[in-house]
């Protein structure tokens, strides 16, 4: 049986509106990857190589107060980073996400930033803070460098003042006579003028 070209196009026009969405849906199911801008989310070929599965972030992750609190808390995985930096950088760390959840829980209880920091110090000790509180012995940690430099500067000033005073009262050092030709003296004069400019 032969089908004329006209007949074929007429039948296609009838079938197309019904079948095209079905074909499109079938095609989307077949392909694993999503298409940009369509909002569809495909599955990854091998999720195991991408690290710890993530949970979607919400607005609290970007809350500047939460971030500020977490930047004052040390992660206890041994990375030397703060909780915020660690949880947004070292994605294999399991400590910082847990500490982040603790911060959120305390925040939900209505605690202030100060109270949250105190709660962490109470639970984990003073090492939970990225910098020790300037109290007691730790106050020395903050004050000693500045104090030492200040004291050294005062001592240096005193020594310099004394030596300068001695130098001013001392007999001026005799200047040996200069044996230079007029040409050399003229060049020296020009060089000095250049510097004085």
């Amino acid at each position, binding site marked *: 049986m032969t089908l004329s070209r006209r007949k074929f196009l007429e039948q296609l026009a009838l079938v197309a509106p019904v079948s095209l969405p079905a074909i499109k849906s079938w095609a989307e199911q077949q392909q694993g*990857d*999503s298409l*940009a*801008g*369509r*909002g569809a*989310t*495909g*599955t*990854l*070929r*091998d*999720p195991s*190589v*991408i*690290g*710890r*599965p*993530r949970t*979607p*972030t919400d607005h609290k*992750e970007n809350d500047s107060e939460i971030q500020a609190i977490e*930047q004052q808390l*040390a992660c206890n995985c041994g990375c*030397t*980073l*703060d909780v915020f*930096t660690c949880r*947004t*950088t070292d*994605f*294999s760390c399991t400590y910082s996400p847990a500490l982040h959840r603790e911060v959120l829980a305390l925040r939900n209880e209505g605690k202030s930033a100060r109270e949250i920091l105190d709660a962490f110090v109470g639970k984990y*000790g*003073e*090492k939970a*803070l*990225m*910098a*020790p509180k300037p109290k007691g*012995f730790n106050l020395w*940690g*903050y004050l000693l*460098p*500045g104090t*030492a*430099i200040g004291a*050294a*500067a005062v001592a*240096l000033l005193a020594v*310099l003042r004394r*030596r*300068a005073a001695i*130098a*001013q009262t001392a007999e001026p050092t005799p200047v040996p006579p200069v044996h230079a030709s007029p040409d050399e003296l003229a060049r*020296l004069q*020009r060089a*000095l003028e*250049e*510097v004085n*400019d």
Partner: protein
Amino acid sequence: MTLLGQFALWAALLVGLWCVAIAFSGRWQDQPELARSVVRSVYAVFGCLAVASIALWKGLISHDFNIEYVAAYTSRNLPSYYIFSAFWAGQKGSLLFWAVVLSLFASAAQLLTPRRYAHLMPYVAGVTAAVIAFFVSVMLFAADPFERMGFTPADGRGLNPQLQNVGMVIHPPMLYLGYISITIPFAFAVAALLSRRLDGGWIQAIRKWTLVSWLFLSIGITLGMWWAYVELGWGGYWAWDPVENASFLPWLTMTAFLHSVMIQEKRGMLKRWNFGLIFGTFLLSIFGTFITRSGVIASVHSFTQSNVGYFFLAFLVVICVLAFTLLYTRWPLLEADVRLESMVSREAAFLFNNLLFVGIAFSVLWGTLFPILSELVKGTKITVGPPFFNRVNVPLGLLLLGLTGVGPLIAWRKASTANLKRQFIAPSLAGVVTLVGLLALGLRDLYAVMALALAGFVTGTIVQEFYRGIRARRRMHGESAPLAFGRLIGRNRRRYGGYLVHAGIVIYFVAFAGMAFKREREATLKPGDSIEMQSPFGHTYRFTHLGISQYEALNRVVSAATVEVTKDGRRAGLMTSEKRQHVDSFKRPTFEPSTEVAIRSGLQEDVYIVFAGAVNGTEEAVYRFNLNPLVWWVWFGGLVLVMGGLVTMWPGGGPVMTGPRRTHADSYQVTLVGAGEP
């Protein structure tokens, strides 16, 4: 080859000890053949260590996984340039690298030092050989790079993914070169004290070495910042980590020395202080090695904890005691030639500059060691992180920046009121105009505003110095401005190279200030989803997640998340951040998945995207987006600083006489009062 390597290490140790024994016995002073033997043994040590190094490289290249070091740091599918750099990636290899480079520098010092310092050279050979012998002993008794295992694994573990970065191929050697080359000035200082030849000769002999060392440290630190920025993924470049601090400490004291040595050269002052600075710098370089290798302080950069730390601690104590005892015994011989004449002088400014450099070094050292001290005193552990260091050091850094501008404006010996007025008016005006402009723009971050205003002041100083120099040359020689600029630098490289270094420092500070305004945001995006961010410069960025693709590369499985970026509505391009699972040649995972950051660098700001992971194995991706202002300028500042350093140390460059009297004026030189150097 391992047998040959171990034999070479033993030979290096024995020859080194011979060199030390003869050099410090002093018997070479009567017997010239012994003096020659001392010097030649330095070359022999270099030969032995070169053989040992070739043996280790041979093991690395031939994948001899029976060698513990080769199995720990390489794998069959590791790219060849990382196999090359694996030499210094681990504790044991880096010790050998240190020893062989030091023996090379020691040989170069013997070869290149002018004959007029021949009386110092056997002592220099003895000191360098002692340091080399120490490193070789550590290898032979605690960290043997040629140690074989009882079995041969089919493949090695491979190199840590964070070390698989071009920055890590260059950055550690640069830092090592800086650390290692400090030994040469230290050796000359000890030699000068031992020989009691305490004129300015040793200072002249080490000038190039101190600059080389400072230059390598500067390059190493800047490359380290770059590596941290592109590889660690936390969005910054300096975290006051103990190992970062350890590299910064000798840089600070060496910079102090480069300034104070000018006072000794010009005025014959600060002789004792300069010895102290050189000793301190060497000790800090060994201290840095101790910190990195002992595990005494937690750091992301340190090698695995091992007992080599005890060796370094003992070495540090012994060297400290010997060096300062030697200095003490020569104390009366180190009187200053002249006294300070005025408090308002370049010398006084340099003294305060030195005070600040050493003060900052003390402050950084104090912060680095404070956790240990606090634990000893209070019995409780504390963390000393960036908030502590920023609080203590930023004000000191700003003071130092201010002095960078003040120093060159004050005349040597004594500055008059008229001179001060003439010198300070334009730079101060530049600083004030910058300050007012920043406040008018609405900037309120105290430290950032101060840093930028002081940067304006120092820039004013530098521009004024160049302007006056060029104007004088044009007037005297009728040169065009570009020619006068070139010749101004060429004829006084030390002074104007120094100003270029100052310009690099100013650029650094401006860039550091920029980070006070960085923007950061986390987001979870499905393919097609977008978020917008406003940059501190007022640009609007839109980030659209396109999807995640997975593919295999040479030694890793890559998951690449791609983002389309638009800036102010115009397409800026695609950026891809990756998760990499490294595997060995049998496709077995070797390390935890690592992150590869996407960075688009611009003069105003960097777009910095980190792919944190995927939600439930889908293409829904979690990102961190950063807009980091002025980061490009950190690298540019580093470049300017290094260029300035190179200009300063380039040979020649003294004043060139022109005209008919040139032939018999070669030895004629006038030291101009007030025409000092930075």
